[in-house]
């Protein structure tokens, strides 16, 4: 049954308010939703009156599935949730299990994990930057962003054995040791990135058409951001201090020197600038770590069958889209009794209606671009 007929059935008749509004579907197959997001939009002419998201096209009930997976097996599922920050999701699950078992992760494993997290964050922001520009009509940045993303994928492929959903983190550390020429390739990537960084500003940030399309669009104030539960670059675009790596630092982030990017504009352009600056911060972190990766073993000794003691555990990490929280309620068995993934995309999407009311369709696409939505992250 096509959900939209529900809305048309009780569409306002002549004389009632809202008569003559155009109800159109953006999605589930739509070039700008980057996935199967279905928005039912009520339009009056070109201005948007209301947005009703209709989710669930890629719902695999990951939470129900995890209830029958052991603590080693459920980690690989999370890289299918927000596939652009696969490593960071796996890092959250590994940390929760280690927090439950009080396992001490060796220093080398922690540094490898942070290195791969930051590489994933850059790769995710690269793809976002290309897709964002394509949404606004410029096709060229997409291909240029994939040149950098491809170099990172080659690094991942060489060490972890996969390009997108790398299952490299295990409770207690990482699956294998680094590949011998990992450092060489990362240095090559840093050199390429430094050479090409000015192009991002020339082609997109500095472009007057781009600025007009993004400045003042999808404004959301600081209180609304907190009230809608938005985290990540969406929150930091409105000046809310919400970087989990700074608020409640995990792994070795408290020993690293990087600063949290905060913009006070609150509109699409501010969120855009936050992500571009975040890429620089990730580069800074990688540069600090790449030359002093400590020696030692890469995986702590863990028992064959992992059993989390009875109780509840919560661990949040900073993915490329915001705060991913893993909440495990354990009955002491080998599988979690109940698991809840607090995904950043779900709350960021709820703010879209508030942001874009009264804007044009072009604004909706611009605002959705800066929300950086990954639909499996929303539907889980």
């Amino acid at each position, binding site marked *: 049954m096509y959900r939209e007929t529900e809305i048309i059935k009780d569409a306002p008749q002549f004389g009632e308010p809202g008569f003559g509004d155009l109800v159109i579907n953006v999605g589930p197959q739509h070039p700008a939703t980057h996935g199967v997001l279905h928005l039912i939009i009520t339009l009056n002419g070109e201005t948007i009156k209301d947005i009703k998201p209709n989710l669930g096209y890629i719902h695999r009930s990951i939470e129900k599935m995890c209830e029958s997976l052991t603590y080693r097996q459920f980690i690989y599922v999370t890289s299918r949730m927000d596939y652009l920050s696969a490593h960071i999701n796996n890092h959250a699950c590994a940390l929760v299990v280690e927090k439950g078992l009080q396992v001490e992760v060796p220093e080398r494993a922690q540094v490898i994990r942070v290195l791969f997290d930051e590489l994933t964050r850059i790769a995710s922001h690269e793809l976002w930057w290309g897709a964002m520009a394509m949404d606004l009509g410029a096709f060229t940045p997409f291909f240029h962003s994939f040149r950098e993303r*491809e170099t990172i994928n*080659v690094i991942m492929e060489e060490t972890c054995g996969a390009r997108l959903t790398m299952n490299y983190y295990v409770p207690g550390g990482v699956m294998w040791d680094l590949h011998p020429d990992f450092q060489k390739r990362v240095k090559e990537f840093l050199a390429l990135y430094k050479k090409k960084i000015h192009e991002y500003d020339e082609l997109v940030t500095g472009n007057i058409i781009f600025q007009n399309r993004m400045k003042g669009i999808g404004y959301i104030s600081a209180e609304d951001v907190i009230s809608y539960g938005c985290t990540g670059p969406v929150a930091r675009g409105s000046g809310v201090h919400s970087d989990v790596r700074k608020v409640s630092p995990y792994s070795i982030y408290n020993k690293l020197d990087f600063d949290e990017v905060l913009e006070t504009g609150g509109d699409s352009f501010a969120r855009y600038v936050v992500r571009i600056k975040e890429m620089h911060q990730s580069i800074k972190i990688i540069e600090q770590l790449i030359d002093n990766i400590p020696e030692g073993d890469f995986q702590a000794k863990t028992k064959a069958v992992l059993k989390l003691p009875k109780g509840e555990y919560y661990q949040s990490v900073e993915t490329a889209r915001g705060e991913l929280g893993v909440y495990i309620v354990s009955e002491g068995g080998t599988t979690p009794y109940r698991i809840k993934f607090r995904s950043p995309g779900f709350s960021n999407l709820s703010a879209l209606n508030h942001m874009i009311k009264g804007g044009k369709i072009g604004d909706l696409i611009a605002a959705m671009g800066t929300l950086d939505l990954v639909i499996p992250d929303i539907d889980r």
Partner: protein
Amino acid sequence: MFIKDYIKDIASALKSLATGMKMTGYYFTHHKEIITEQYPDNRDTLVLAERFKGEVVMPHDDNNEHACTGCTSCELACPNGSIKIITKFDVDAETGKRKKAIDTWIYHLDLCTMCGLCVEACPTNAIKMAPTFEHSVFDRNKLVKKLNEDGSKVRAGVE
């Protein structure tokens, strides 16, 4: 005054458009920047990372022996049930005792998500991940594979 910032506004707009054009113009003229990989043509020179997790395979040495003892720990480790081990009991020649051995190692390549947990869990390193990625077939049940060759036995001394 209005006219002054009207003109300044136009000038900065044109300058920003010009820098964008200059950059794309640079790429239009410099073909050495092209990054396209001609996949089907460069097949023989294509080098894949040797750790690439493409498909689970069971290496057999020249006299058709492998290292799988049929202990089914990989089947337990697999998150989505794409491994099915059928074991049989065959009588050991010298000691005459009945020993468990592998009969068929069924591998559902269509279900497998290449997570590598089975290779990690195998005590005797009998299976490993092969860097093959061309898995497309015309008939789906070609994707259900039997990893241990016919007539293969466990290598002696593998416990």
